[in-house]
Each structure stands twice: as structure tokens, then as C-alpha cells.
């Protein structure tokens, strides 16, 4: 392995529930504090305690934040997974292990460098309490890594001081443990390793946060007052984050009363029912769930679409179908969410790629839901939701006011003749609503999932039903220009190749485009941010001969949606897929694209003109 500075992958193999998470985060955060781009990922099993769990940290001078294959340094603290962990190290890589016990021969690979540290022995000598022994073992390896990789000790000290505000007694033993690890390395190994860190100034104002916390904060800023939810990995921390921020920022200091209500519902059906009830009654309300929860919410989503009640749903996708791999990531609820419920139903989807977008789009989703009087579904995923990401800082414009959509007040009702809840007065398909309790004699209407006429009166008249369904399509077309527009990455010399991606495939897609460019393959790119697709998406596809669609599911669901919605020739859209439950990598993308191009372009010695 060549000596690389600020460009490598470290993987930690731990036992679930042993307190390794905070030690590993300390490691990642220290690199971030040294001004070097870093991206950590949890790779955890679906169980509570005692089984193997991994944490992977990619360091990238170039700022690539997608996952990268290959492990340069394996920190193995779990004997259970050791055989597999040894195998996963890249040739020439390092294997740091607890050498309290001698390593058996089957773990020895000639092409791997071993760094044995008697973690357990050191810990037992230093600490008496069994829990402490377990916790500080983790800190000792962080100390060792600091020495091996050149992490600044002051940075670690600073982070520990911040972490233990109010529990200062804990700082000393942590520092002690760090030093134990550092000393051991100083005495036994040559350091730093060829892979190591050097302070940079590449972070700027960026912050580090997970997508779910960003969504929770976005809901708070977006003016949500009612949150109803039911626990499910990987979405649970959205509601928890909302609650934490709300407890901090939304409680009246004098009375202790809350400007919000959070209900942990009995199931997802109830959670969605509460969201609909609250929105119907004029409160901004949301829920967060994952695939199985969306399945349960289908009936209510159809009701909200047809009865035209706003609702915000944050779907943090995980691997399906059914229980699938509950703690692994996928983008596989696309079609379920887009068309949730029976009949001709369709929903607005928002597709954030970063925590900043999680924050902004969640806040914006309430405006969209109320303006369009329809459910808005945020599609994030486990990778974005549960992993810490470097992100641009959040911003808020204080002059911004919530757009509550077309809601009539009592005096407006006085000024009009007969109120028609489903009358398309403005020609944009969006009708006026009233909140319950507005006016003694005007504006009351009956909300129902059954067909009705423009005055909300029940009818099974086919013509009235058709008029209504067609108006809903007018509204859908209006929505096209209200949802966030796609981002286009296009050089001056337009290629005839295009690529479309969205959400968490973005980091790896961008990196893959760079890799392909080095091979002489230039591709224009479009990042989807929302469904319905607007004209830009159509134009992009029309103006390219071949368009790759990158996504993380088996059935190329986004490609299907594009074909269905834009009437494009399916042969033109080439799927680029990953669905093993791990985040897609640049390598996967670049390989699939170049393989396709090699297979479809006539073989000459020169690069075909077609792909330049």
C-alpha cells in the first residue's frame, strides 16, 4: 500500500452494547476537528446486545463522502467476528487487535501488518470496575490510533471536555486511557503509519449531524406542532430528535406549557390517523416511519390524497421487502410511496441527499403539504438518517413566514357567496378549505373518502367523480413547479450520456463521475430532488442518448417511475443498481457504467467518440 495522507478507511469491529459507539465517534470527530473530510458509517446488526457491530470511517482529502470498499486499517475488538475481519483487510493493510491472548495461526495473513496491543491486560491493570474495564478498553484503542495515525492529542482532550460537561470526574480516566494507548504505540511500533492524518483546513463552517436529527429539527423550524409516531428502525430518532429540540426550544419558560404535542401511537395506522386529524384541524403535523409502517399507512394516505388533507410523512427507508434487513439501507420504497394506496393515487416525494437538505426539505414539506392540501413524503434512508454526515450548516431566514395555503377566514367567508370546498376557483386545481370552528353558518363541510361534488356533497355521479379526479391531476401539474427542481451538473460540452441519481447515492455518484472522467468518459448528471418530475427532468432525458439511473434497489424503481411518468423509451434508461443493504459505492457505479459502455460500443483502440 502506498503511503497515503488523509485518504484511507478504518473499520472497527465491536460487540454491540459495549460502549464502543462513543469511542468510535470520538475518533471520527477528532479527524473532522483537524479539518479533514471524514464520513463514518454504522454497520450494525438487527439485535440489541452481544452480537458483532461495525463502524467504518472513511477519510478523504478530496472530500468524497460516499462509502468506499477496502479496509486499510481494521480495529478488531470482537473475537466473534475476527476470522471475517482478518479476511476483510486490503492487502498491505493493518490489523489492530487485542494481543492479551496470542493470535491463533488461522488469523495470520502474510500480506497484512499486525498491530497487537494487550488492551484487556492494560485495562485490567488500570481499572478495577468491570464496566470501566470494558469502556476504557475502547478509549485505549482510540489512544493507540491517535499515535498511529497522527491525531492531535489536544483535539481529543478538547472533545472529551465537551462530552463530559457536568461530569468532569470522567475526564481524567478517559485521558489516562488515551495515554495508555499512545504510550504503548510509542514503545512498540514505528509511528505514524504510512496511512495517517495531517491537519487541513477543508471543513470550513461545516457541521456533523445525522439526517434524522436534521429532520427533527426541520420539523421544529417548519412549525410542526403535532408529532404522532410508532417506533421503527431507522426512523425512531426523527421523533426523538423533534422531542429533544422541542423540549429545549418550545416550552414556555413561565408556565412550563408546551407548544407541541407528541404522541407515541399504538401503531402506524393510528400515527397517520392522528397526523391527518391534526392537519385537517389546521395544525402542522407529521410522522416518521420506515417501509413496514408506510405499508400500514396506505389506506390513510389514500384518504388524505382524495379528501385533500395535508400530511407530512418522513420515510427513512430500510431494506425490504417485509422485515428484510431492518438495519441495512436501501432506496426501495420509491414506488410504494409514490403511489401509496389503492385507486389512482399519487404523492409528492422529496429526496434529500444531505442533513442540510433533510432540515430544509422537512421544514418546506409543511408548506408544500398545506399549499397543495395533500400528503408529502420525505424519502430518506438509513444511511442518511442514522449516520453522521458532514454537512453545510443549517440556515434560516428570519423574514420567512409559513405558507399555510388556501384557508378561508370568517371574514373571507362573509364576503363570498356559497362556499364550495372543492371548487377550483383559481384554475390551479387547488381549492379553498376552512378549519373547523371558523364561522357559525358558513364554511363547514364534510370531509370524506367517498366521492363528492364541488360543494363536498356526497355523490356517486360519474361525471362529478371524473371532474374531481381530473382536477386532482391539474393540482398535480401545479405541484410540478412547486417542488424543488433537480440539480443539473453539466459541463459546457454536453455529452450524449446522462446519469440520474438522488438521495444517498449522490456522494458516490459524484465520485464515480470523477473516476469515469479520468478514464475519458464524460457524463452529464442530474440529481432528482422531488417527485413529480418537472420539465427539466424530461428535457434532460430527451437531450441525452443514454441515461443511467443510479439507485439502491433490485427493481430499478426510480427508473420505472421515470418511464411511467415521462413516457420515455425504456431502452434509453440503463439501471445502475446496488441492493446488498450497504450504501452504494463509487466503484460499483463506475464499474457498472463502464462495463455497459464497453459492451455496447464498437471495440476500437481509441476511445469511441460517442463517450467523449
Amino acid at each position, binding site marked *: 500500500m502506498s503511503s497515503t495522507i488523509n485518504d484511507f478507511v478504518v473499520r472497527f469491529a465491536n460487540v454491540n452494547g459495549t460502549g464502543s459507539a462513543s469511542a468510535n465517534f470520538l475518533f471520527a470527530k477528532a479527524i473532522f476537528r483537524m479539518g479533514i473530510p471524514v464520513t463514518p458509517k454504522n454497520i450494525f446488526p438487527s439485535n440489541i446486545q452481544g452480537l458483532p457491530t461495525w463502524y467504518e470511517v472513511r477519510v478523504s482529502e478530496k472530500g468524497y463522502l460516499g462509502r468506499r470498499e477496502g479496509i486499510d486499517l481494521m480495529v478488531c475488538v470482537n473475537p466473534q467476528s475476527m476470522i471475517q475481519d482478518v479476511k476483510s483487510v486490503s492487502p498491505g493493510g493493518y490489523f489492530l487487535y487485542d494481543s492479551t491472548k496470542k493470535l491463533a495461526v488461522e488469523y495470520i495473513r502474510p500480506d497484512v501488518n499486525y498491530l497487537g496491543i494487550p488492551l484487556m491486560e492494560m485495562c485490567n491493570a488500570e481499572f478495577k470496575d468491570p464496566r470501566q474495564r470494558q469502556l476504557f478498553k475502547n478509549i485505549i484503542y482510540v489512544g493507540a490510533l491517535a499515535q498511529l495515525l497522527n491525531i492531535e492529542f489536544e483535539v481529543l482532550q478538547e472533545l472529551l471536555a465537551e462530552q463530559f460537561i457536568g461530569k468532569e470526574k470522567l475526564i481524567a480516566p478517559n485521558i489516562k486511557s488515551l495515554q495508555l494507548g499512545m504510550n504503548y504505540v510509542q514503545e512498540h511500533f514505528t509511528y505514524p503509519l504510512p496511512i495517517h492524518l495531517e491537519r487541513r483546513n477543508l471543513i470550513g*463552517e461545516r*457541521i456533523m449531524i445525522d439526517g434524522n436529527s436534521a429532520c427533527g429539527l426541520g420539523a*421544529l*423550524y417548519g*412549525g410542526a*406542532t*403535532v408529532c*404522532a409516531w410508532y417506533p421503527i428502525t431507522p426512523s425512531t430518532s426523527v421523533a426523538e430528535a423533534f422531542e429533544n429540540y422541542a423540549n429545549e*426550544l*418550545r416550552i*414556555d419558560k413561565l*408556565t412550563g*406549557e*408546551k*407548544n*407541541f404535542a*407528541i*404522541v407515541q*401511537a*399504538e401503531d402506524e*395506522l*393510528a400515527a*397517520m*390517523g*392522528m*397526523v*391527518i*386529524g*391534526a*392537519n*385537517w*384541524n*389546521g*395544525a402542522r*403535523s407529521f410522522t416518521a416511519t420506515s417501509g413496514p409502517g408506510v405499508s400500514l399507512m396506505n389506506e*390513510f394516505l389514500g*384518504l388524505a390524497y382524495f379528501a385533500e388533507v395535508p400530511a407530512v410523512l418522513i420515510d427513512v427507508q430500510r431494506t425490504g421487502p417485509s422485515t428484510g434487513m431492518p438495519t441495512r439501507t436501501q432506496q426501495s420504497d420509491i414506488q410504494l410511496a409514490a403511489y401509496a394506496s389503492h385507486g389512482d393515487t399519487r404523492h409528492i416525494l422529496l429526496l434529500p441527499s444531505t442533513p442540510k437538505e433533510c432540515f430544509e426539505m422537512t421544514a418546506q414539506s409543511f408548506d408544500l403539504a398545506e399549499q397543495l392540501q395533500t400528503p408529502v413524503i420525505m424519502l430518506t434512508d438509513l444511511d442518511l438518517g442514522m449516520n453522521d454526515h458532514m454537512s453545510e*450548516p*443549517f*440556515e*434560516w*431566514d*428570519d423574514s*420567512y413566514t*409559513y405558507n399555510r395555503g388556501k384557508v378561508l377566514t370568517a371574514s373571507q367567508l362573509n364576503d363570498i357567496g356559497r362556499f364550495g370546498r372543492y371548487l377550483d376557483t383559481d384554475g390551479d386545481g387547488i381549492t379553498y378549505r*376552512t*378549519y*373547523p*370552528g*371558523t364561522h*357559525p*353558518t358558513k364554511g*363547514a*363541510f*364534510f*370531509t*370524506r*373518502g*367517498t366521492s363528492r361534488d364541488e360543494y363536498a356533497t*356526497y355523490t356517486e355521479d360519474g361525471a362529478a367523480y371524473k371532474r374531481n379526479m381530473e382536477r386532482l391531476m391539474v393540482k398535480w401539474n401545479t405541484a410540478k413547479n412547486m417542488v424543488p427542481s433537480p440539480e443539473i451538473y453539466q459541463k459546457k460540452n454536453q455529452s450524449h450520456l446522462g446519469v440520474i441519481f438522488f438521495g444517498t447515492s449522490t456522494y458516490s455518484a459524484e465520485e464515480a463521475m470523477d473516476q469515469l472522467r479520468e478514464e475519458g468518459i464524460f457524463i452529464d448528471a442530474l440529481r432528482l430532488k422531488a417527485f413529480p418530475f418537472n420539465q427539466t427532468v424530461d428535457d434532460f432525458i430527451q437531450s441525452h442518448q443514454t441515461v443511467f439511473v443510479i439507485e439502491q434497489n433490485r427493481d430499478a424503481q426510480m427508473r420505472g417511475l421515470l418511464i411511467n411518468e415521462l413516457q420515455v423509451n425504456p431502452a434509453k434508461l440503463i439501471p445502475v443498481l446496488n441492493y446488498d443493504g450497504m450504501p452504494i459505492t463509487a466503484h460499483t457505479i463506475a464499474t457498472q457504467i463502464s462495463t455497459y459502455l464497453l459492451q455496447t460500443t464498437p471495440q476500437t483502440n481509441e476511445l469511441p467518440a460517442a463517450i467523449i
Partner: protein
Amino acid sequence: MSYLRPLFRHPKLPTNKIGYTKKEYEGALSTLCAGCGHDSISAAIVQACYEMSIEPHHVAKLSGIGCSSKTPTYFLGNSHGFNSVHGRMPSVATGANLANRNLVYFGVSGDGDSASIGMGQFVHVIRRNLNMVYIVMNNGCYGLTKGQDSATADEGSKSKSGSVNPFQAIDLASLAVELGATFVAQSFSGDKQQLVPLIKAAIHHKGFAFINVISPCVTFNNNPGSTKSYDYVREHVEATSTVDFVPEKREIKAYYDEGTDTLVTMHDGSYLHLHKLAKDWDPQNRISAANALQKARAKGEILTGLLYVNTDFKELHETLNTTKQPLNTLTEKELCPGSAALASINAGLR
């Protein structure tokens, strides 16, 4: 269509305290079968709201799916209504109530709606003590889907199609008492004298008020064998108490005979005046209510009246400690912490 309301109204219809005539509390014409018990319950709701001088637009009426759940169209035409999905009215009502605690919430459901598909939500809305009136129009069958047995159908009873129900019936009133509902009453759709005051008391109750109303389905379950038929109910009702609802402003003390009466204080200071028929009936004793229901059931009797009330529990908003101001009236001023708070959040994430 069960009844044709005359279009002509006498110009001098009596008005209530806030100047409304009964007309203001009526809804669209019913499309239920003529004689359906549900229509009588709608009429009782109209009567109760009129007599209590409730502003019609301060009521939100929600329902699930079923003949019974259609009824909110037929009362309080000036109120917003929400006919949601089958069995899931309680969650929609919960959300609505969280959004605006100042309205009166009426939930209407059927026995299919509440005792089968919606059992989970029924249980949990009780558990949360949502401040609402929850009426089950209980006919022991599925009316809208044409007469199948519901979970409250009597064991051994025959459905219209002739099949015999092999399962035990769920007794919703017992269940509500058992689950700790803070107000549980039972009545019969044909007994307006009893039903109207019960509805009035339920409205005044601050918390979850459940009224199970036996409401015969004339089309599918008015069979001689059914305990939800007219004849059966007429023969087997046992009233726990005669109920009179007394608004707080009225002088009450001299009005009642001592010894046989109980006054139940409602949250707003009004009273429920109960004239006990059964010996030692104490509507504030949950255990005796549960026992009495079980005993009546064993005898094939239907206990009616106010079975249980408890005004000591917090309703949902009190439990959550939400602001007194309805959440749906809060603006960005109260809701959005602004850019300065965000800057410090950013700073904490570096």
C-alpha cells in the same frame, strides 16, 4: 330514507339561550333505512346540543365507516365533519383534538367499526382519556355490508343469512369500564328520555365519555333472537339510574328528594343528577359498575344509564401539558426559534 323532514318551519320556532332554533342543529336528510335506530340517536344528539346551547360550529364530528358512521351528515350541518376510514376514527379525533382543544368532539362509530377493525384504536383512545364524546351505535351486525355478524353479536344468534354466530360477544361497555374510561354509559336508541341527558352529561365530561347505544338494525338484525332487536331491548332493559343533567347555573339543591339521589359533579361545575333505581348504585365505583354489567349480562339484561363516571383523571392535553392556546393558532412567532438559535445549534455540531 328514514324520515322526511318537513321543509316548512314555523316562523316562530322556539330558540335556545344563544338564539338558535333546533333547525340550526339539524343536518342533511338521512339516507338510512326507515326505522333505523341510528336516526333516533342523531335526533338525540340534535336535541342535546340544542338544549345545551352549544355553538354548532364549535363541534367537530368524526366517524369511521358504516351506516352509523354516516350519521354525522345527518346532524349539526353547521359543524365540520370527517368521515374517515373503517375503525380508525379515534386516531383522527385524537389528532384533531390535539390541534384545537377548544372544540367539542363527537365521535360516532358502529360496533363493527369499534369492536373489530378499530378495536386497537378504541382501546387506546380510552387509555389516553381524550376529551371527546364517543358514541357506538351498536346493532350487533354490520349494516352497511348487509348483515354479517359483528363482534358484539350474541353467541348463538342467527344472522340474516342464517349462519349461527359461534363466538362470544364483546361487551363494549364492560370493556370501557375495564379499560378505565372516565365516563361510561349505556342506552337504547328508542329511549330519548334517557339518551338526551346522557349525551348532555357526556359533552360536559372533561375526558373520554363513552356511550354504548343499542341501536337495532331494522333491516338485518331485528330478529327475535337478537339482544339488539327492538322487542328484546324493550323487554330486558334495566336502568341503573334516571338521569337528569343540570347546567351549573341552575339552583339544584331544593329540586331533588333526598335519600335516593346522587349528584355527580362534572369538571365545569355542573351536576349530573341521578335518581337511583338499583339499590346502592354508585356511579363512581368502577368495581361495582363492572360487576353489575357482568351480572346483568348473565341474566340476559341490559343495564342502561350512567354506569361509571370519574372526573379525577387528566384528559390528554393536561397529561401532555400542552399550552392552553389551541396549537392550530400558534404562528411562527411562537413556533420558530429563528436563525440565532440555529446558529448556536450549528456551533454545537462542529
